């Protein structure tokens, strides 16, 4: 599905019956507008559209295909290449650590991922490692209660690294442990160090970056910093039930090579979906 603007731009190529420089330049300009409005990183937009233009002019249109379809295929192909195919979490014993910027949906996603894995028959424990935010303990504890997952936390402990070490020692009978951490951003050196220490102590096999789909141009740089700190194994894109297209997700993947594992689509523990690359791209352009 393409936005009306893109569909109109491509009509010209359909009418022309071939792709010439002038018509592809016009289409590229409209693709750029669509991607920028979807919050895709400016430099990434230029890179992707340069590729599209080059390929549209140099690749022969396959026989029996309308040149308009040919351009659409190249467009999808280029974006899916950047986006990746996504990946699934193993349905097995694992430790998952959730990190990300303030308010992007970590705590809520912890409950969603727990619920998802519980439905697959795994026993899940939620580990509350946010010692900074007021009410963080109560928030995750209540969510754990809602889904019947085990909860590990300590309202008194102020040192999150010590806390994680101690809590993980109490969690033997669980298949999956999900560690919810405090919000932080790339300029907070002490909090980035805290995150590194939690990862060292918790040794999570999965380190997932939670990314809000409404994020703008800052997404790429932030994701890069988190990746350089602890090495991300996946991305969870949240709040896709709103109107944002999630263009920042492209940068989060492009800058880290981490694939998208889940998409959050609401506030309740059931509001989570497996990532579908083609569907994501068509929403981006729609």
């Amino acid at each position, binding site marked *: 599905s393409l936005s009306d603007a893109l569909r109109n731009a491509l009509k010209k190529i359909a009418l022309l019956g071939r792709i010439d420089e002038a018509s592809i330049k016009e289409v590229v300009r409209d693709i750029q*507008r669509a991607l*920028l*409005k*979807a*919050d895709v990183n*400016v430099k990434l937009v230029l890179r992707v559209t340069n590729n599209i233009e080059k390929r549209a002019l140099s690749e022969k249109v396959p026989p029996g295909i309308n040149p308009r379809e040919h351009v659409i295929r190249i467009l999808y192909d280029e974006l899916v290449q950047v986006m990746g195919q996504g990946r699934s979490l193993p349905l097995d014993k694992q430790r998952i650590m959730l990190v990300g*910027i*303030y*308010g*992007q*949906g970590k*705590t809520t996603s912890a409950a969603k991922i727990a619920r998802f894995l519980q439905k697959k028959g795994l026993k899940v424990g939620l580990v509350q490692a946010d010692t*900074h*935010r*007021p*009410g*963080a*303990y*109560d*928030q*995750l*504890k*209540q*969510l754990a209660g*809602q889904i019947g997952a085990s909860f590990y936390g300590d309202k008194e402990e102020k040192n999150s690294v010590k806390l994680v070490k101690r809590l993980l020692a109490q969690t033997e009978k669980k298949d999956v442990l999900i560690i919810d951490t405090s919000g932080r*951003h*790339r*300029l907070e050196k002490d909090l980035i160090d805290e995150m590194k220490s939690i990862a060292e102590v918790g040794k999570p096999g999965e380190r997932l970056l939670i990314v*809000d789909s*409404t*994020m*703008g*141009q*800052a997404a790429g*740089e*932030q994701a890069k910093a988190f990746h350089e700190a602890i090495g991300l194994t996946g991305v969870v894109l949240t*709040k896709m*039930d*709103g*109107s*944002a297209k999630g*263009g*920042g997700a492209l940068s989060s993947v492009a800058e880290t090579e981490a694939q998208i594992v889940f998409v959050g689509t609401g*506030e309740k523990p059931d509001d989570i979906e497996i990532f579908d690359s083609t569907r994501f791209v068509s929403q981006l352009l729609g």
Partner: protein
Amino acid sequence: KRLTILKLESLWSDFEMGLLESDVALPVVEELRDGVIDDLLDKRVGLGMHVSHLVDKSLKKAIDSILIEPDIDLGKMIVKGKPLIIMFVGVNGSGKTTTIAKLAWALKKEGHTSMVAASDTFRAGAIEQLEKHCENLGLKLVKHKPGGDPAAVAYDAIEYARAHRKDVVLIDTAGRMQTNVNLMAEMEKIKRVAKPDLIIFVGDALTGNDAIDQAEKFNASVGIDGIILTKIDSDAKGGAALSIGSTIKKPILFLATGQDYEDLVPFDKGWFMERLFA
């Protein structure tokens, strides 16, 4: 010689890139472009005049006219004997609850008594989060059971404020997507019952183009009197300030710059312009 559209457009593309990378939403960037081209097209350029300098000046003038000077002085709005009712709205996770605590602290330092209404009756831990802040700041919190009616909480808080002569009632509402019809209707109900003197939109400075849709829909729904932009400390360039401000033509009152109660500063146009062009 006179400035041609070609010359202007070629110079504009550098400025455009900078604005987009600073998170100014695309429609607003295009509006600025039209304004600058209108302003400079056919203008006579003398020898030695740098055209890009003219574009820079014209752009800064356009932005300066978009950003409305904050004209709301909370302290001055407080009338003894009648509580000033301020309602905070915005999408999920933008920083409403934390901003309320900061504003209460700022008001306290100026000698005003404020209290809080826990009208987010939905989210896990929402009431506990506010309880902690109110405990830290010595503020009265009116709350009901989780799942209660947000409008009823606001009503009770206002009754309490009148009975106990509180200067300000700060109403914390749940985050909501501007596209969720039911939640937008719930927000309108809170407004109808509470009749706030001010409705403040709390927006995340990291937001991209969605800032426009958020601002439009929240403004159309309950009417926004002022904006507070949060998480400026995350190095967000803050273009969202321009996107939101130009879309609903309302002033940005404060910028939130961190986790502590002190981290709330009055919006300053000059500082913002400098940061945007940094």
